């Protein structure tokens, strides 16, 4: 299989979709962010000049227009840019796109993709570092996709564009340069199917998007401690693959979640609650959430570093729950 950058895989998915479906169009073209990989979009601009609409800086309107165009039977891909800007378009996203099908009693489809770049990027501070996936998870009716690898992003983006539902496609600026295996041929990665990025018997570590790489780094470093960590990447929050996460916790008896959304009511909170309700008896130690704390994102590097969920923080959490002195809360059922 050939190696390709994450950004290149996105461009390939967009090119295939543009070639395949004449009703598919792009509203906004900074899908790859403003880093050096952005030039890869130039080929799309050249090949499909009449399919790409660069809108004014009007997030509310482009979100609404995406919803309306989808209702009219088109397939728009709306690029919001930095995920923090999506808050400007919250009403049409949450009040229109998310609920339109339900309010219509199932007679309307809203096949729009909203694309955004979330997360800590280095100096993004309070208005360019947002991770709105947990807030959006609280708006029923939206599919939420968070890829972490070049292979996944191509396949998930193809699925998102084909989906008949409003789909929030959340990338991370720091993923763009990552290289990985990407098939030349077209394929899809189905929604609602988690990927076990690394198998391990001792601890289940759930991660999405960029922090999957921190999770993998932590898992590799913990081998030296004799600890085998299983890294589970749900890939989509809606729909969420409960079974793969539960089965993993059943095998390991321990759960750590790393995520960039803030702690309270975050992605890690929801996964913790699912395990508490559906897999409580599997647990041999408390669940640990390694997330951004409940504070705005600071600008200064040492401050931003302090709030960033990292491999080191995961390693500390895993060592704590693997400590044999920790009281075992329940016998393992396996």
């Amino acid at each position: 299989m050939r190696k390709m950058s994450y950004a290149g895989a996105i461009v390939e998915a967009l090119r295939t979709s543009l070639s395949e479906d004449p009703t598919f169009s792009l509203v906004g073209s900074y899908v790859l962010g403003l880093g050096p990989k952005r030039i890869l979009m130039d080929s799309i601009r050249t090949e499909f000049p009449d399919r790409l609409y660069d809108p004014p800086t009007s997030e509310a309107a482009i979100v609404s227009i995406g919803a309306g165009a989808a209702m009219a039977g088109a397939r728009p891909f709306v690029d919001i840019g930095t995920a923090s800007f999506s808050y400007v378009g919250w009403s049409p996203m949450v009040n229109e796109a998310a609920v339109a099908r339900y309010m219509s009693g199932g007679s309307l489809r809203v096949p729009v993709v909203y694309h955004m770049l979330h997360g800590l990027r280095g100096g993004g501070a309070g208005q360019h570092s947002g991770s709105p996936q947990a807030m959006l998870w609280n708006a029923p009716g939206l599919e939420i996709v968070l890829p972490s690898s070049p292979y996944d992003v191509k396949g998930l983006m193809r699925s998102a564009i084909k989906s008949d539902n409003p789909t929030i496609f959340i990338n991370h600026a720091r993923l763009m340069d990552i290289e990985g295996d990407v098939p030349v041929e077209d394929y899809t990665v189905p929604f609602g199917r988690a990927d076990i990025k690394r198998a391990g018997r001792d601890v289940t570590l759930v991660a999405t998007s960029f922090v999957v790489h921190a999770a993998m780094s932590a898992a590799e470093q913990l081998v030296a401690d004799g600890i085998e960590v299983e890294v589970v990447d749900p890939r989509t929050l809606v729909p969420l693959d409960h079974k793969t996460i539960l089965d993993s916790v059943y095998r390991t008896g321990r759960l750590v979640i790393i995520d960039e959304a803030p702690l309270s009511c975050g992605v890690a909170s929801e996964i913790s609650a699912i395990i508490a309700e559906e897999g409580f008896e599997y647990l041999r130690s408390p669940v640990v959430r390694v997330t951004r704390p409940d504070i705005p994102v600071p600008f200064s590097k040492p401050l931003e570093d302090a709030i960033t969920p990292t491999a080191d923080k995961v390693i500390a959490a895993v060592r704590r729950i693997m400590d044999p002195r920790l009281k075992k809360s329940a016998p393992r059922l396996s």
Partner: protein
Amino acid sequence: MKVSPLDRKTSLSIFDRMLMMRYFEEAVLRLHQERQFASHFHLYIGQEATGAAVLEALGDKDLICTTHRNHGHLIGRGSDPGQTMAEILGRSSGLNRGRGGTLHASDPSRGFLSTSAIVGGCAGLATGAAFGIKTKRESNVAVGFFGDGSLEEGLVIESFNIAALWKLPVIYVCENNSAGAMGPQQGGYPTAITATDSFTRLPAAYGIHCVKVDGADIAAVYAAATEATQRCRAGQGPAFIEAFTVRWPGSSPLWPEPATVTDLNEAWDPARLKGPHVAWLRDHDPLLRTARDIVAHGYVSQDEVMAHDKDARARVEAGAAFAIESPMPLSETAHEHVFA
């Protein structure tokens, strides 16, 4: 704009839409008073000429998004009165299986994509529907109906900009019904709160074709809407129609009240007018005015008008009976229709 008189067929078709709208709304009010449904709601009484004439100017494939004062637009578009009333009553046989209700009823099978009860929300959706039309290279148009209060929302102004930039085939129909409305000072609905002295200044600033019309004059509205659709279909970009109507006295605070009850005989026999709202009925009721006009033009006799009236009342009553007899949705179906 020079307005030519409407022909007989068009006049009667618009009038029939207006009759259905009016009696549907009177039935909604009655069913609310009978506690058949509990939510708050908005009636289209007094604005029928605008909606009916705009809808008359549209084709079957044109797309419609509207605002919370939506019943008239649905009925005027031809949605089934029974299914529409059933939706307002939250019944399983409703247009939207009881998921939408009065505030969100839609009928996508008739191109009626959405009722958004978020003020100004429909302007963005209609602009989007027009963008969808453009990307699909089709020749239909999208219409967004909204009230004058929507012009206070940023989304609406942003939508004007994009519609003008991309020459989208969208017609914004601003139904200005603030005249005669009680403001909050009188304990009434909020009316438009704006620093502009003319709403058309806002879309005009983006080069959008703007027309002001008397919203109770079917010929004027039909002419404006026809011109707007022709411009859109010719690729000349969006249009904005501001239609002025005088607020129906029943649009009282929070819930509509039965301020007037329609009797078309009042159209040609002013001696029958009575009660506290004679002035509105005489000068501003678009249904009485249109009935009077089509008789005056010699298009129909008074007896023929009353036959149309009877037919519309019967259709609405059959729909209301269907809605009342329809079952409520089963509670275990609440999870259905979230995703396609």
